[in-house]
């Protein structure tokens, strides 16, 4: 069993005075394909927001490599910059595809020359070089998702959070990104994927957490799923 890189402990989140998340424990394993599954409204995206440190308004704690993620233990911004998120409905900023892919590096004050080189490389790798000069509002849903994937990968994240990316992707692209995710795990990246795709779950999942009604129903490497 791989090391635990991230853990949510006793995490409670309320919305309109109602608990929408009531998690005792969820573990994310290093350099593995971790899956988060469950019916719509079960709290998957809410948990993803908390684990990726995008949402810090909750009760309980998130542990990174066994250490509670607090201001005392970590520079939260720097830690967050080790993570990347691919959202279900990606938001692209005004400007070109190239400027969107470059944005995370610009936010980290990387030099222009290095940014341009990295943008070209990642675009080549994901076969979206032809889109680089296109405006973000001229893209199809699939092209937007590919751009957002490139934007998320350009920082070489330690943990990649992926929230149902397949919705806007065609069959070929889905297959391509499944293989890409597997390659990334080979390279040592940790992935947490939210999906409803049975093919992905059956073929790639190493660790699965099943959420239902904001609570963990099952969790681990050997989860019994009633498909």
């Amino acid at each position, binding site marked *: 069993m791989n090391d635990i890189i991230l853990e949510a402990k006793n995490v409670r989140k309320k919305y309109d005075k109602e608990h929408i998340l009531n998690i005792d424990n969820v573990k994310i394993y290093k350099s593995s394909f971790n899956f988060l599954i469950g019916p719509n409204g079960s709290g998957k995206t809410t948990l993803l927001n908390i684990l*990726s440190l995008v949402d810090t308004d909750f009760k309980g704690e998130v542990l990174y490599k066994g250490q509670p993620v607090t201001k005392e233990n970590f520079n939260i911004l720097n830690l967050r910059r080790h993570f990347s998120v691919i959202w279900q409905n990606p938001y692209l*900023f005004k400007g070109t595809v190239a400027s969107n892919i470059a944005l995370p590096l610009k936010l980290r004050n990387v030099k222009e020359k290095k940014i341009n080189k990295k943008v070209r490389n990642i675009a080549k790798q994901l076969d979206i070089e032809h889109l680089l000069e296109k405006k973000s509002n001229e893209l199809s849903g699939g092209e937007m998702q590919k751009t957002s994937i490139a934007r998320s990968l350009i920082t070489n994240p330690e943990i990649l959070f992926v929230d149902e990316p397949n919705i806007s992707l065609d069959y070929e692209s889905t297959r391509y990104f499944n293989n890409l995710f597997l390659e990334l795990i080979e390279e040592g990246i940790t992935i947490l994927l939210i999906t409803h795709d049975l093919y992905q779950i059956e073929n790639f999942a190493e660790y699965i957490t099943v959420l239902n009604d904001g609570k963990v129903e099952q969790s681990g490497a050997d989860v019994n799923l009633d498909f």
Partner: protein
Amino acid sequence: MEYIIQALKGAFNLIITLDPEVRTVVSTSLQLSITSTFIAAIIGTPIGILITKVDFKGKHFLNTILNTLLSLPTVVLGLLVFSFISRRGIMGEWGMLFTMRGIIIGQVLLILPIIIALVRNAIHDVDEKMYKTAISLGATGTQQFRLLLSEARYGIIGALVTGFGRVIGEVGVSMMLGGNIKGYTRTITTAIAMETNKGRFSFGLALGIILLSISFIINYIIYYFQSGEIQ
């Protein structure tokens, strides 16, 4: 018909020959409008952003007041400011009545609600997903704010251009607070009203054509920024 054709010929002649009086009036109007818009932008843009992003008691009431002020008649505003800056007003000793400063105060107050409301709308229109995305990409608080401004920039520019369009075409504030003094506080609109009454129809028409051209350019810019066709 002959009268109109002659007046039109005279008007174009005044524009083409860059008549000094026309130039002075246009220049005064532009100076006033640009200064008023600049001041209102500096005050109104941060307020518009704060109203959208900060939750406070009475926010709904403030927004209702703001929306009401959008249709404030210029003469009513002129009257209000007049009561403050006239000799017997509480700011009377500063001698601002019938000066450019007096007009600027009135014009700033006129377009402040417009700029605040339109900036508020521009910020409000930025997709909520933007904030989550910016955080997930590793933006600091300041970077998130800069990204927000960048995403709303066309709406904000549109707000400022709309404010400029409002002041360049208003007559009530300029007339009541400026006094329509030739070569000093006479603006395009007050000159049109006065010179036409005096029978200088060509002169009024020349200024009307210039004002219409400015309005066209302003509307073109607003359309350009708000059409969503540009990025």
